[in-house]
């Protein structure tokens, strides 16, 4: 099966800039969504804008730590004080909600999942995406991580997998020769594809798997 990757999108946002970026893109739509879901949507929507298309969509993303800030807020601000968790504080700690919010933006979403993975396990995402293409026309794949400390940007990187080739798409397949592949992580594999140029294929390794990315056409 030939599979193509479109619109590798790398988003880095300073934590203090996130609210303004979200307002600029989504107006007031996401004001109660929680920071992690907002970060997911900002990157995912940018990827979809770049890729185009409108077929049935799967959304698959991973994070090492998930919605850390919302979880901290729910635990520290509510439970520690012995108060009931506020509905939107509680909901905001569920990273999975980003899928529903994207679906509410008129995307025909048929399935979503949020995985918690260590950085070297990124290669499970394209493997799962290939399986999902059996019943989704397109699979949006992302890696999202909130900034853990000052001076570090939030990350929300996304790309789109589909079987239909289009101009500018990257052909991708599992590589058998993992020893020649460069080690990549969840934080940089999409960025490396976005930055890749030249005719030679790009070989990236993550954990037990390696992937080959080549120019289409």
């Amino acid at each position, binding site marked *: 099966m030939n599979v193509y990757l479109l619109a590798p999108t790398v988003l880095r946002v300073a934590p203090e800039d996130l609210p303004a970026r979200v307002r600029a893109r989504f107006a007031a739509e996401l004001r109660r969504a929680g920071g992690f879901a907002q970060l997911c949507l900002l990157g995912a929507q940018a990827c979809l804008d770049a890729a185009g298309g409108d077929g049935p969509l799967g959304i698959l993303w991973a994070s090492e730590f998930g919605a850390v800030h919302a979880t901290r807020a729910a635990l520290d601000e509510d*439970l520690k004080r012995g108060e009931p968790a506020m*509905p939107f504080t*509680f909901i905001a700690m569920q990273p999975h909600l980003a899928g529903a919010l994207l679906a509410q933006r008129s995307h025909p979403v048929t399935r979503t*999942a949020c*995985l918690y993975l260590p950085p070297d396990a990124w290669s499970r995402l394209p493997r799962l995406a290939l399986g999902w293409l059996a019943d989704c026309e397109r699979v949006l794949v992302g890696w999202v991580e909130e900034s853990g400390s000052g001076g570090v940007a939030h990350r929300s990187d996304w790309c789109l997998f589909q079987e239909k080739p289009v101009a500018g798409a990257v052909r991708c397949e599992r590589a058998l020769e993992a020893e020649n592949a460069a080690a990549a992580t969840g934080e940089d594999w999409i960025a490396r594809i976005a930055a890749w140029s030249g005719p030679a294929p790009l070989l990236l390794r993550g954990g037990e798997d390696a992937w080959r990315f080549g120019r289409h056409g």
Partner: protein
Amino acid sequence: MSGAFVRACALASALGPDLEAAVERLAGAPVAPARDTQTGGPWPYFAIPISGKDWRKRAQAIARSVAEDLRREAALAPGEWAALPCIVGSSSFCVGAWDDGGWQALEPSFEFSSSLAKAFGARGPVTPVSTTCTSGFSALDIALGLIAEGEFRDVLVLGVEFCNRLTVAGFAGLQLLSATAARPCDRERDGLVLGEALGAVLVSAAPAPWRIAALATGMDAASVTGPAPDGTATAKTMRAALARAQWETSRVDLIKLQSGGGPLADLAEGRAVRELFATVPGSVSLKGALGHTLGASGPAELALLLASLSRGRVPATWGFAKPDEELGLAPSGGDGKGVRRVLFNLSGFGGSVMSLALEKAG
């Protein structure tokens, strides 16, 4: 059509520390959930009857107990067992560790899931997944993909939800809990009662008594906390499962309902079922007995249902007494010897909807 089978199941739940105890208890008189638990506060809560002051040690003890049961039933060779990949579905992972250890006690969900896999003796790749209440079936979905790829013959699927104050407080804040009891499909239902469980399912390409004919997924984006009132997304997902399994509706013998006693959610599912089925087959809900075990509910309810059916029984729906005419479902237990095809519904926050088609093999 899937070429995967349920090779073995195990369960720790409020009904008992193991599946055998749970099935026997379910065949008896209904038992009310505990009250005034440390986790649930004033809300009723279905707790696993295994004590332990340290949250993490208790979780490990439950995992080791379930692992022992599953290993015995699965009868895999030691090398095959050790090589198992483990897919862990949960909505809360180890957030309960905060209750007695504070922020420092929390660990990344991958680390917590890896510790559970280790308690099971599974040394293959670990993949934690969260899709809130459907997490356990998202784990099953990933497992089916691994088997379809041909890379693994057997995959361990865990649905995990251990007691924690945050989840109870969150559902209370959303006004989704009943102050009295879970009454699935009942006219007087007034909300959910939460519970904890560890459900383990060993899925295999090797033939076993129950075949997974299809697992369909859907998205109901009407609201992030509840289904569309007309049940459209649930109906569409059930229809997709039937189509993939190549079943006519008349071939379904039993529907395992998502129904947990939520006034609107139960109504939406009822509408979906009645839209699809001219004659509604037998149905059952297990949340009156287990509580709503959220991310564990798929594997936990699957384990309990298949164990009951293997003993020739469709379990009773605890908490259901007075039919609701508007809902139009009357789940009832009884003889399960003729049940060959089951449609199994699950849905959750974030709009995730799943429907599993199960067929007796042979």
